[in-house]
Structure formats: structure tokens, C-alpha cells
């Protein structure tokens, strides 16, 4: 390779690739024998895409075939005739039944079910559990990451605002990195689409939502492997917020465009046959736009994580089958 830039890029990308996969656990090494490959890959990917009740950084299997999980437990909060609060470490990563008072709970595929003391889960014909599912308000991995991102943004942008005030509006330090991004949002998104006159009112929301999604997408690439924006509940919440803001702050022109798009260009009796088709389409449009965007973000992130997990599964599955132990860190 003659191009030094290309070599550098290649080296850096392998670094990232390794960082992304080193966290993926090697726990299937011990359980690979009793399942076929398709369900194995499926379980592996599902495990990494879903939200979980503990923050596991990585896990490894030692020489005595004991799987160690490295991470920390998170609080479980359930509504089951009154609040039930306990630490998710009581589940022992889904291997044991958690006891709280006289109630028993067990984890099944990341969901909490109410069980008896032995933790039996009953299934219906389609192999879905029939146990009672208490309302789960737990602080899960996703919630932790949202709160962390919120705190990070508060500290970062609060500090930036203070530094700008102190230096007379000149970027300093990390502000030199963020200023072009903020200017891009202001000049090319807000002013270009909303207009000089009213864009200022929407800037806080636009910047917040941009950096929130951007930071969480970036965290999704780290070995912590959090999949927050690939969670349809999160994107739905963002879409509902945007829907409410656009429609509640919509001006006269906005509603006029919805219900009278042709304006004074033709007499009213000529508009009637056109509006029978146009107005329903416009009204559907205000729902379709946020819906389409929420599916887009969710599906993009989900697909990206599936590809990343497939790559890391290739490496781990291959290493386990061919006994290439040097391919498995933490093993």
C-alpha cells in the first residue's frame, strides 16, 4: 500500500473493530454444543440488541468452565400491588429466582415474570410465557445511558456557554470542535427551512435532539454496546415530541398550507374537487413524516448493530469451533 493515508485509515479502523468486539462475551463457548448454529447466532444477536437489567461490560469463561460477568447491577423497580424495589444482582444474570418479601420473580429473555419459589415459567402453545408480567419501571441499561447522556450534555454545553461568555464569544478548547456543528444546524437546517424570522425559537430543541441522537449513536459504537437509539420506544418518544412541537407552535401559514394549499390561485368552486383529495393527503402527511423518521432511525441503528454483532460473532464462533484461543481475548 503506497498511500500512507489509506494505511492509517485501515489501521485505525481495525483498532475500532477490535474495540467494538472485545466486549462481546465468550459465554457461548460453553453452551455451543447443544444448540444449532442458527439459534445460536439468533440468541447472540438478540442478547446484544435488547435492553437489559444489568450493565454488563463483558464476560469470559475461565479454565474451569465458569462464566464470569464483569459489570454492575441496576435497580429493578416493579409495580406489583405496590412498588417492589431490589437490585438486579439477585437474578444472577437470569440464572436464579429473585425473592422480594413473599414474591418471586425470574428473568426470561430479558423480561421479568412473576413465578413461584422454584421459578417455573408456564408456556402456551406458541411457547410464550403465560406468567403474570408486573409493570416494569426499572432503571435499565437504556435509562442509565439516557441519564448519562443528559448529564454529559448539561455539563458540556453549560460549560461551553460559560466559556463563550468569558471569552467574548470566541470558541475555546472543545468549543472549536462543536462550533461548526452548531453553526451547521443553525445555518443549513434552521435558517434554511424555518427562515430568518422564527428560527431562534426552535434552536434549543433542534440542538438538543441533534446532540442527544448523535451522542447516543456514538456510544452505541463503543464496547459498552448500548443500543439506545435502536430502541423503538426511544424513537417513538422523540417523534411524539417533534410532532407536538411542530403542530402546537405552527403558525397561521402552516395551517393555511394544510387546509388551503392553493390559496388565491383559483376560485373557491374550482378548489372543491381538488381539496377532496389534497386535504386528506396533507393531514395524513403530518402523521406519516414523524412515523417514517422514527422507523428510519430505529431500523438504521438496529441494522447497524446486527451487522456489528454478526462480525463479532464470526470471530468468536470461529475461534470457539477451531480452538483458536488467541482470537479470544479474556479467554
Amino acid at each position, binding site marked *: 500500500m503506497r498511500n500512507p493515508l489509506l494505511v492509517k485509515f485501515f489501521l485505525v479502523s481495525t483498532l475500532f473493530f477490535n474495540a467494538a468486539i472485545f466486549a462481546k462475551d465468550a459465554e457461548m463457548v460453553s453452551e455451543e454444543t447443544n444448540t444449532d448454529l442458527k439459534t445460536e447466532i439468533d440468541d447472540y444477536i438478540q442478547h446484544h440488541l435488547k435492553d437489559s437489567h444489568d450493565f454488563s461490560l463483558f464476560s469470559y469463561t475461565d479454565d474451569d468452565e465458569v462464566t464470569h460477568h464483569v459489570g454492575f447491577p441496576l435497580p429493578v423497580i416493579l409495580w406489583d400491588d405496590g412498588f417492589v424495589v431490589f437490585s438486579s444482582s439477585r437474578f444472577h444474570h437470569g440464572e436464579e429466582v429473585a425473592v422480594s418479601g413473599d414474591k418471586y420473580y425470574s428473568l426470561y429473555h430479558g423480561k421479568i415474570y412473576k413465578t413461584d419459589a422454584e421459578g417455573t415459567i408456564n408456556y402456551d402453545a406458541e411457547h410464550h410465557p403465560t406468567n403474570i408480567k408486573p409493570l416494569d419501571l426499572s432503571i435499565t441499561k437504556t435509562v442509565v445511558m439516557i441519564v448519562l447522556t443528559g448529564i454529559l450534555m448539561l455539563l458540556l454545553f453549560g460549560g461551553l456557554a460559560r466559556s463563550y461568555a468569558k471569552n467574548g464569544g470566541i470558541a475555546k478548547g472543545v468549543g472549536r470542535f462543536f462550533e461548526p456543528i452548531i453553526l451547521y444546524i443553525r*445555518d*443549513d*437546517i434552521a435558517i*434554511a*427551512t424555518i427562515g430568518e424570522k422564527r428560527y431562534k425559537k426552535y434552536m434549543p430543541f433542534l440542538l438538543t435532539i441533534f446532540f442527544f441522537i448523535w451522542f447516543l449513536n456514538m456510544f452505541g459504537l463503543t464496547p459498552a454496546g448500548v443500543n439506545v437509539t435502536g430502541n423503538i420506544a426511544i424513537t417513538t418518544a422523540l417523534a411524539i415530541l417533534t410532532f407536538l412541537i411542530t403542530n402546537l407552535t405552527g403558525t397561521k401559514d402552516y395551517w393555511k398550507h394544510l387546509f388551503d394549499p392553493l390559496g388565491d390561485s383559483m376560485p373557491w368552486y374550482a378548489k372543491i374537487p381538488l381539496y377532496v383529495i389534497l386535504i386528506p393527503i396533507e393531514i395524513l402527511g403530518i402523521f*406519516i*413524516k414523524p*412515523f*417514517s*423518521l*422514527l*422507523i*428510519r432511525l*430505529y*431500523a*438504521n441503528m438496529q441494522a447497524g448493530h446486527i451487522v456489528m454483532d454478526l462480525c463479532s460473532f464470526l470471530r468468536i464462533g470461529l475461534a470457539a469451533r477451531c480452538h483458536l484461543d488467541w482470537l479470544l481475548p479474556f479467554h
Partner: protein
Amino acid sequence: MTIPRIVGAGLIVIGVGVGIGRIGGQAMEAIARQPEAYGKIQTAMLIVAALIEGIGFAALFATAEN
């Protein structure tokens, strides 16, 4: 029922590809014709591409198994 699903997914990808490709191409032409309107054209292009992608993903989910 796997083959119809795969064919359907392929058709969706073709449709979305043609759609986004056309948007991109037309936006390029528009920018070449009016370079000063670059920002506006780019934003509108991205929004429309995002809408098409969203619907495409929704359709892909409909073809997915389970």
C-alpha cells in the same frame, strides 16, 4: 415461505434504491444549475431521502420472519 420473503425484500431494496438514487441525481442537477441554492436543495434532498428510507425500512420489517 422463505423465498417469497427474500424476493420481496429484494424488490423493496430495488424500489428504495431507485427512489433515493433519483433524488440524489436530481439534487445534483439542481445544484449544478443553481449553486447558490446548495443549502436548501441539500436539506430538502435529505428529508425526502429519509422519508423514503423510513417507509422502505417499515416494508422490510413486514417481510422479516417471526
